[in-house]
């Protein structure tokens, strides 16, 4: 094999290796939300959230299975799926966006990085552009945690809340995202 061939091979293989190195994934991320009104507090947790953060491209995606949200009351969970999210028709919520304020390679150094996230959120079959801020925290062992808090309005995503329960469900629902990424 000549030097030329070696260089050629390296040129072909390296980009793949590099991008692979900068891709962080999680299958058991947490997304929780809470709605609080004087009448009732509602909370739900989902710890089966999948996400990929591709640092080299500055891109992040999430897929959230609606049926995996767990409520304290079984009946709430049933109503959430059946009456509001219509999870048989719309089984997943997703997000695809760009991460700003962080450079490729930053996460290999321990520290906390404030980032901005901008992209398209799809819930209940409706896609909206959203923008929020979050934090990436890399610890010395190489673990990376991403966290992000924002609010959404069910009405923005075509989720109808009948008058009967209007006082029980907040207009702004607080969403909390916590993802432990591993590199792959």
């Amino acid at each position, binding site marked *: 094999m000549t030097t030329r*061939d070696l260089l*050629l091979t390296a*040129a*072909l293989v390296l*980009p793949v290796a590099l*991008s692979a190195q900068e891709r962080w994934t999680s299958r058991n991320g947490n997304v929780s939300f809470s709605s609080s009104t004087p009448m009732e507090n509602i909370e739900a947790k989902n710890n*089966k959230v*999948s*996400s*990929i953060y*591709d640092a080299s491209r500055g*891109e992040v*995606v*999430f*897929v959230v*299975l609606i*049926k*995996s949200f*767990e409520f*304290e*009351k*079984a*009946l709430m969970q*049933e*109503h959430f*799926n*059946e*009456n509001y999210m*219509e999870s*048989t*028709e719309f*089984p*997943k919520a*997703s997000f*695809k966006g760009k991460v700003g304020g962080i450079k490729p390679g930053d996460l290999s150094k321990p520290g906390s990085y404030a980032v901005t996230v901008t992209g398209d959120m799809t819930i209940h079959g409706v896609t909206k552009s959203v923008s929020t801020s979050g934090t990436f925290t890399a610890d010395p062992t190489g673990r990376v945690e991403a966290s992000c808090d924002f609010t959404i309005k069910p009405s923005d995503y075509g989720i109808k809340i*009948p008058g*009967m*329960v209007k006082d*029980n469900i907040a207009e702004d629902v607080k969403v909390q995202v916590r993802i432990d990424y591993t590199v792959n």
Partner: protein
Amino acid sequence: MKKYLLAIAFAGTMPALHAQDDLLALLNDSAEVKAYSTASWKSTRVINGHSTENTAHGVLDFRIGHRFGFISDGVSEFFGLDGSTVRLGFDYGITDRLQVGIGRSGYEKTVDGLLKYKLLRQCESGCGMPITLSLVASSSITTLVKDKLPWYEEGRTDYFTHRLSYSWQLLIGRKFSDGFTMQLMPGVVHRNLVRYAEEKNDVINIGIAARYKISKRLALTAEYYYVLPDQLAKPTATELANDPNAGYKNSLAVGIDIETGGHVFQLHFTNSTGMFERAFITETVGSWEKQQIHYGFNISRVFTLHRPKKG
């Protein structure tokens, strides 16, 4: 040079490969998680009989079943609204698949107990089971005082065991779409004591039930129990002379389910008076043709007693 061309061609495909691995598509392909069908019915009862729904783990369901008198009783009885039969019951989910319950009916002052277990669960994604299969076992005991028992005779010993009856049912159900669910319920009712020698102690029956959702909170329901022939007592000649329609009938009920937050209201018409298996499967006397129909309702209210830790 050939090698170079090959390399360039190969390199040319690289961006294409890269673009193809759209991150969202990548996640969507792998995010298939096992999920079972839920909310096939609004309640654990279709109308009189059981549906494939269970009370969830840690949930207590307080149920009031109420049947007015026969509509055929006419204006003097306010078309049945003057009369009433009630069953009060508590059901509890020991796990998401095992439900126990107890009830007390005004009908022959009966106490009943039940156990329902989901053997198979219909799968929605990530697995292949097409049906839900449940087993319902129940027993009932008549607590009437001795001389009020239907089989009471002067000098006859009142054995405790004579007051008992049992029912076993398999519920084979499928949620065909978000709005439409159907189930078949083959079963057997065992009565320790029957009134006539020609009656069978074990009564084989099969039920069929369906629901159709007309909106998110309203659903139409119907159930029919067919008792295989020559198992129940035939009416005697005198009974027939008094009422050509005498004799036991198959149970038919049609209704509407209304869901309001924590309650489910079930409003219906049925020719059955009792609200436990022995009563509505083997002792239905009302005839739909003769308007011997009860207007009735069930109210279900759930309380979360215990919040199971979920993994």
